[in-house]
């Protein structure tokens, strides 16, 4: 096991152009499950590929286990990687796929069978060893890729969107298995995804990236409840945080905090007139899309999320009193978008 650290890591693909990764400083903890989260083009995969040694940094350092590895080839970094496409060797059987890293790293031949059986047993694919990758389902391929990654007990696991090729139902169970698997092996893991649900569910900590810059590093709770800037606030959460711009400040609140006035028990609350334009019925919850009325945020679009346990009667076209508890308001500097101290509301 090892800690991965990057210092001022930068990657510029085309001279003069904006860097794909800019000055990234981060450090994993021992045995941590760290998630890189960001929209496509945010540089998360490039960052991972630099750590893997598949991409050369333009500047900055990468450390694995306290040692600078910039000049080491991927094989010398003691890492294992699972690719989005799994990158299984199509002409080799599952057994030979899993044994390939052992062979390539000169592990004694007598030990191969034992190690392959250990890895495939751990992932429940022991009965598939004679098959070719093309004869496997998506979920089985993903497990073969994982088995190939763990078989030589690497210091660090790098996972590049390994669940994105699975269908929704399989993805949920694979997510659970992956978490369980991480608990069992306890290896430091870096996981890249654009799916915030995966990030929140699996990550010990989440690194939110945007345009090659780290916007926030924190536990899922921290990045969701205390976003560092307006990008994190709107990227995380579906539907995203509502933002109200007023004088020099941006005020944000989550759709699930924007509730019918009579349902909020807190003492300090901010009241709005809310006209519902249309609503989505999602089973466990209803998402209301509407506009504010009366205040100086007239016709500002706001989203509210009501749990199915809340009373019905919020129909399209109706106008109600809605409110947000003051404790649920988040303040951002309007010019920088960065988080600001809580303060008195700028309107009466």
């Amino acid at each position, binding site marked *: 096991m090892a800690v991965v650290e990057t210092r001022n890591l930068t990657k510029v693909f085309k001279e003069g152009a904006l860097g794909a990764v800019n000055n990234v400083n981060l450090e994993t903890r021992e045995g941590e499950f760290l998630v890189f989260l960001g929209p496509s083009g945010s540089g998360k995969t490039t960052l991972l590929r630099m750590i893997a*040694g598949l991409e050369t940094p333009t500047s900055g350092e990468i450390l694995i286990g306290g040692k600078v590895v910039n000049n080491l080839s*991927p094989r010398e970094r003691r890492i294992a990687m699972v690719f989005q496409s799994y990158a299984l060797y199509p002409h080799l059987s599952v057994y030979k796929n899993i044994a390939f890293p052992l062979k390539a790293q000169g592990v004694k031949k007598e030990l191969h069978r034992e190690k392959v059986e250990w890895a495939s047993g751990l992932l429940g694919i022991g009965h598939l060893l004679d098959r070719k990758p*093309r004869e496997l389902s998506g979920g089985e391929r993903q497990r073969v890729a994982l088995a190939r990654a763990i078989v030589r007990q690497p210091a660090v696991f790098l996972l590049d969107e390994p669940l994105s090729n699975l269908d929704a139902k399989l993805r949920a169970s694979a997510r659970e298995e992956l978490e369980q698997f991480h608990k069992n092996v306890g290896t430091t893991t870096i996981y890249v995804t654009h799916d915030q649900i995966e990030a929140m569910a699996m990550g010990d900590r989440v690194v939110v990236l945007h345009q090659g810059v780290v916007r926030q590093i924190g536990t899922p709770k921290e990045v969701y409840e205390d976003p560092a800037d307006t990008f994190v606030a709107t990227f995380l959460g579906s539907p995203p945080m509502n933002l109200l711009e007023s004088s020099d400040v941006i005020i944000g609140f989550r759709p699930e905090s924007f509730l019918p006035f009579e349902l909020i028990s807190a003492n300090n609350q901010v009241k709005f007139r809310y006209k519902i334009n249309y609503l989505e019925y999602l089973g466990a919850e209803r998402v209301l899309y509407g506009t504010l009325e009366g205040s100086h945020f007239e016709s500002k679009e706001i989203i509210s999320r009501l749990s199915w346990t809340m009373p019905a009667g919020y129909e399209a076209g109706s106008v109600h009193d809605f409110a947000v508890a003051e404790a649920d308001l988040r303040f951002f500097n309007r010019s920088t978008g960065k988080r600001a101290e809580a303060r008195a509301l700028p309107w009466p």
Partner: protein
Amino acid sequence: MAIGRPKIKSLQAAESPLLGGAMFSPAVLYIVLLIGAPFVLAIFYAFSDARIGSTTLHFVGLENFRSILQSPSFRKALQNSIVFTICAQAIVVVCSTMLSIALEKKFRGRGLLRFLILLPWVAPVSLGSIGWKWILDSIYSVITWVLVWLHFYKPYGAPMWLGQPHLAMASVILVHCWRLIPFATVVMLAGSSAIPKEIPEAAAIDGAGFWRTLFQIKIPMMLPIINVAVLFGTIFTFTDMTVVYILTAGGPFDSTQTLPSLAFATGIQGSDLAAGAAISLFLVPVLVVIAYLMLRMAHRAEVV
């Protein structure tokens, strides 16, 4: 609907047997007239005593086959054809694989290099062969001139590239390789670029070096396309007579005579149409077997 209607109409037109037949007919005509008819004629002649200038024709059964099987020239030509094809293909496969790997990565001047490599394939065979005939000529050879200039050989003591049996065969093989490598390289490039880039990357992370990735991952994955290149190359080599005819005309002492050149020499130049036809028919079973084997291999090695 207004947009959909003409589409349906054109679909119906495409399904009409008349139009389909009309569009198919040039191909059928081409095959029947230029391949089918001569092939049937060759079979017919092979069992007859047809000769150029003779007005009579008799059916002679297997007589032609019996006589050519006893001819030392034929046996030599058959042996040469096999050596010629195997050596040329071995060299072509190795060189084109190497070239395709070298040309995969981007570098300055790659486009120009690709163009230059493709030139031998684009130029007409006869022109290329005539060029080589001069390069290897006994008196005017630039290769000999350079070797003499470098003091490897004394003047007039240099080897005769096309005049000594083994050297002549080697020359013919190498010129043929020169001509076939571009084609094979293009086929291989297509094959190697079809390998997803994550796969060699995964191999690199798994700890494989350049050679292991090449021999255990890339080449096995390219095998179906290599088979295609070898299949085409074999047929091109086995049936080619231009290079042999222009460089050596089969000499010296039949040492570079191959089946097609022998068939031409016997049937057209030697006026014995029947024997020429019989010799060329020997190509058929060999080619059929090669085609069958290669197609089966390509099918079995199919990946993904």
